[in-house]
């Protein structure tokens, strides 16, 4: 066989370096692709923070950079949750802010002047490049095929399921958490394979970082023990597992307890009990393994059986006693609602009300994963061929994460990494088989043959390879087509679905040009410019972080939904009559009320559509005063037109939304474009609030809460007097209209 120049390059010692270089270049290209595909929003709009939660993270980062780490740790924020305030430093996951703070200071040290906002905007794309790298390492641990890791990295770089949470500007915990998740799993696999304390300690270190970054760390906390437990059940106990697990658990738990928000949860919360239980179990198994060396088999069997029964009994009773006595907290609501899917709807409406906690319909899976979704089961099947310890991990992760992703849309994010691993395993097997140019089996793909009778049914016969070039051409070209289609799909999805900042809305003019709807920033800037620095703004909790971040005004409730009662108070004020709401507004020092209204533009994410959740949450606390049933007509319809119920038409939310809306139209022609219904000829009358600001497209409407009347009248009378109506006799006044609160 004559040596071609290519052979010289790819074989032997120089070949290894060449391949290494190639691999490095490919990975760098993948990282570049991952970063650049996330920049749509910056190019189309501007370098801006997106959505809701990122605004808080941004605000906290600014605080950290300004005041330093010490005072960030002790930060008490009196500009949210008025009048309660929030112990912000102790109730957040600081990993994200500290990361960008460190980057900021490093760049400063290198004399690169860069705005903290740009670091925040570009943090998520930057970390997605690292995630692709971590993915390469993780997948390389699963197989001997060198192409699988690169494929997995490429998939991870551009798959929409991950892009959805990591485009430029979505400065959220998930931005760095997915990298940490994948990297922790890589370190864990490494630790299990080598049985090394170093890898175990590194896994614990990154686990600690993960705990500081995202509440989803509980997934790791439960998945690793489950992996160990399954391995023990399969009779695969070894000192490697013992060393890696005990190292990880001891150091990881200590690390996680350093975060104030987590504190003593790892030893008191049921979410974390499986890790502790498995820790205990593995000690016993190790002890049994140790004893087996000294005692004859028959005695050992008896001893083992007795020990298992005694230990399980004691552990079970202990757990029950501790739970009943309250030392161990029961499952946290969010976690519990994953198992009992009806739980949240009945007991915690505030969790059920968030759109990303809804179950996932199948199109969402295909939308986020494209053809990976059907390569995924094939890859999992291939894991059963070798079934080494790390393959067991892939299988457990796959089944568990598919379940979670099916229950909650947002957990698609935890499913995506393992889908990329499994799909890369499947596709690389195909590529290794069909791309190999000469006849006969591919020597590299053949490396892990398992001919034992225990193996999979489909892998029993010997591998002879693909013999005809026609077959190879057909398969290779079709795989290339599928891959190209995948890239096109990902780009299309990213560009169309995931690159909108949602603070700025884009629409198309009739001539095809882009029109920017910038009502949110217009209104927030109005607040910043025209109201007192300490003016309290009441709005539904969705907009709390944005008001805090963009308008820099104190709010009553925000997206950190730690106090359900306070949120319900706002819900009650919004859904009650003015006579009931006004005292609530006065008691909470509210100066302005902000509502989002999409009726003019047809913007469906407005407050009237969210209104039922406000009612439900308020009803949870005041079931006698707010009733969801009253907002539905006798036929069970939710209406805003002539057929709306009196409760609906008298609610503060309805009045604020449709105040003066009639004046935009011909008399009797007012149409709500979201609900598609014609409004009553006469609009609602507001007496305790006055309109202060309405944005260009009426998306945001701000109302000022009137002060008490100078003449001591109630507001109804005052408004009637201003309109020129004759004042009714005081004696004729009836009804329980008590407006004065002092």
């Amino acid at each position, binding site marked *: 066989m004559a040596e071609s120049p290519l052979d010289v390059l790819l074989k032997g010692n120089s070949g290894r370096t060449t391949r290494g270089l190639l691999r490095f270049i490919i990975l760098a290209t993948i990282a570049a692709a991952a970063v650049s595909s996330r920049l749509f929003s910056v190019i189309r709009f501007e370098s801006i923070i997106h959505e809701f939660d990122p605004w808080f993270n941004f605000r906290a980062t600014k605080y950290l950079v300004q005041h330093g780490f010490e005072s960030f740790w002790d930060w008490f924020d009196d500009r949210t949750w008025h009048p309660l305030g929030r112990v912000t430093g102790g109730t957040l996951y600081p990993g994200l802010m500290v990361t960008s703070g460190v980057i900021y200071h490093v760049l400063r040290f290198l004399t690169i002047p860069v705005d903290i906002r740009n670091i925040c905007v570009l943090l998520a794309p930057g970390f997605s490049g690292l995630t692709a790298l971590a993915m390469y390492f993780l997948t390389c641990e699963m197989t001997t095929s060198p192409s699988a890791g690169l494929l997995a990295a490429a998939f991870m770089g551009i798959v929409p399921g991950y892009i959805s949470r990591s485009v430029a500007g979505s400065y959220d915990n998930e931005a760095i958490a997915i990298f940490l998740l994948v990297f922790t799993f890589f370190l864990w696999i490494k630790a299990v394979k080598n049985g090394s304390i170093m890898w175990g300690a590194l896994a614990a270190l990154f686990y600690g970082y993960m705990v500081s970054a995202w509440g989803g760390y509980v997934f790791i906390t439960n998945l690793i023990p489950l992996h160990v437990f399954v391995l023990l059940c399969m009779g695969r106990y070894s000192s490697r597992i013992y060393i890696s697990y005990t190292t990880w658990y001891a150091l990881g738990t200590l690390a996680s307890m350093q975060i104030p928000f987590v504190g003593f949860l790892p030893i008191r919360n049921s979410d974390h009990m499986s890790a502790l239980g498995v820790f205990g179990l593995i000690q016993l198994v190790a002890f049994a393994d140790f004893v087996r060396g000294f005692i004859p088999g028959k005695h050992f069997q008896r001893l083992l059986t007795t020990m298992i029964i005694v230990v399980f009994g004691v552990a079970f009773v202990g757990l029950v006693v501790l739970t009943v006595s309250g030392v161990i907290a029961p499952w946290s609501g969010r976690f519990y609602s994953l198992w009992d899917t009806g739980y949240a709807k009945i007991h915690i409406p505030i969790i059920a009300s968030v759109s990303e906690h809804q*179950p996932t*319909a199948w199109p*969402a899976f295909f939308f986020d994963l494209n053809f990976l979704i059907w390569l995924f089961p094939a890859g999992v*099947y291939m894991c059963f061929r070798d079934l080494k310890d790390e393959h067991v991990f892939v299988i457990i992760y796959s089944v568990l994460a598919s379940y979670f992703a*099916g229950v909650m849309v947002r957990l698609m994010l935890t499913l995506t990494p393992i889908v990329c691993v499994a799909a890369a395993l499947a596709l690389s097997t195909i590529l290794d088989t069909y791309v190999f140019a000469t006849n006969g089996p591919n020597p590299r793909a053949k490396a892990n043959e398992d001919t034992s009778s225990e193996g999979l049914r489909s892998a029993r016969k010997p591998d002879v390879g693909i013999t*005809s070039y026609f077959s190879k051409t057909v398969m290779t070209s079709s795989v290339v087509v599928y891959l190209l289609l995948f890239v096109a799909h990902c780009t299309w999805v990213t560009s*169309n679905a995931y690159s909108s900042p949602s603070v700025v809305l884009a629409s198309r003019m009739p001539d095809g040009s882009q029109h920017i709807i910038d009502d949110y920033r217009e209104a927030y800037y109005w607040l910043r410019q025209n109201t007192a620095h300490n003016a309290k703004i009441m709005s539904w909790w969705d907009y709390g972080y944005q008001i805090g971040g963009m308008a820099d005004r104190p709010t009553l409730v925000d997206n950190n939904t730690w106090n359900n009662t306070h949120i319900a108070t706002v819900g009650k004020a919004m859904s009650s009559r003015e006579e009931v709401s006004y005292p609530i507004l006065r008691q909470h020092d509210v100066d302005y009320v902000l509502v989002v209204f999409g009726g003019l533009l047809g913007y469906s994410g407005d407050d009237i559509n969210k209104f039922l959740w406000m009612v439900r949450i308020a009803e949870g606390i005041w079931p006698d005063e707010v009733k969801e049933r009253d907002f539905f007509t006798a036929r069970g319809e939710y209406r805003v037109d002539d057929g709306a119920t009196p409760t609906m038409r008298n609610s503060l939310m309805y009045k604020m939304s449709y105040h003066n809306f009639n004046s935009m139209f011909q008399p009797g022609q007012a149409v709500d474009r979201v609900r598609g219904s014609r409004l009553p000829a006469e609009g609602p009358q507001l007496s305790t609030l006055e309109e202060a600001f309405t944005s260009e497209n009426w998306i945001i409407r701000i109302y000022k809460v009137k002060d008490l009347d100078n003449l001591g009248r109630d507001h109804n009378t005052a408004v009637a007097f201003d309109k020129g109506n004759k004042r009714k006799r005081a004696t004729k006044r009836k009804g329980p209209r008590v407006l004065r609160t002092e």
Partner: protein
Amino acid sequence: MKLFNFLVSFLCIIPNAFCAAADSNKFERYRSLSRSAPIELTDSSYEDITSKPRDYHVAVLLTAADARYGCILCREFQPEWELIARSWNKGSKPDGLQMLFATLDFSDGKGTFQKLMLQTAPVLLVFPPTVGPFAKVDDTPLRFDFSGPISADQLYTWINRHLPEGPKPPLVRPINYMRLISAVTILMGAVTLFTVLSPYVLPIIRNRNLWAAFSLIAILLFTSGHMFNHIRKVPYVAGDGRGGISYFAGGFSNQFGMETQIVAAIYAVLSFATIALAMKVPRIADNKAQQVAVIIWGSVLLGMYSFLLNVFKTKNGGYPFFLPPF
């Protein structure tokens, strides 16, 4: 004048005294009808039990439990209602607080349903007493509308909130001994069975193919949106309005039960084709057969994927991509 006053007061006292006596009789009478379960009412007894004056609370559940009315909610709630009544009647009550629980079924009380203009069932009415220490000025009954399935605890808290202050008997769910015993028996049976059969069962449990099948089925089930069906309780299929069946629901976040099964089947075929191409085909020794297998599986892959893209396009109107056949 004095005489007049006297007459008036006399006239007032007599019926009151008389009624109060009658009332306690009425309460005892109804109480004796049913010691623990809710009282079964008819049109006439409904009139009687709710007639003024009354010195007791009465909670009437207007329901339609009979199978021919097809009220699933009514039938589901019936045992919960009986649980509430039993807990109240057996528990210790605060002094003087008298309460009756009654049920009026539609088949016995059509007249009442018509009179109250009830369109839906079940409805709960709670009548406060008109005389006695807990009498209320406003004697209109409180009404509870069922908007969905509800547990006894929730309804019981609602009732308690509208009763006067004071301790109330707690809701006691009877321990289901039958279930406990059967659970223990089944568990012991399983352990015994396992010990006896372990030589035969263990190879099956340790069978890799079986576990692979389980895992794949679970993954396919979850990724095709089964949990959505389970949580949202979507219909299995729906008509398309022209007498046919529409297999695919319109809209991106809607789906039918059958639709998810079709999608799961598509995924399964695609995965199986991938597995066959990657693992089975390279193990076919005969050249011709291998070539044919590659062509067959390759075209299955292409056809199915194309069909999947086509289905997805119907769900998501603006989707621009497709593959040839479909």
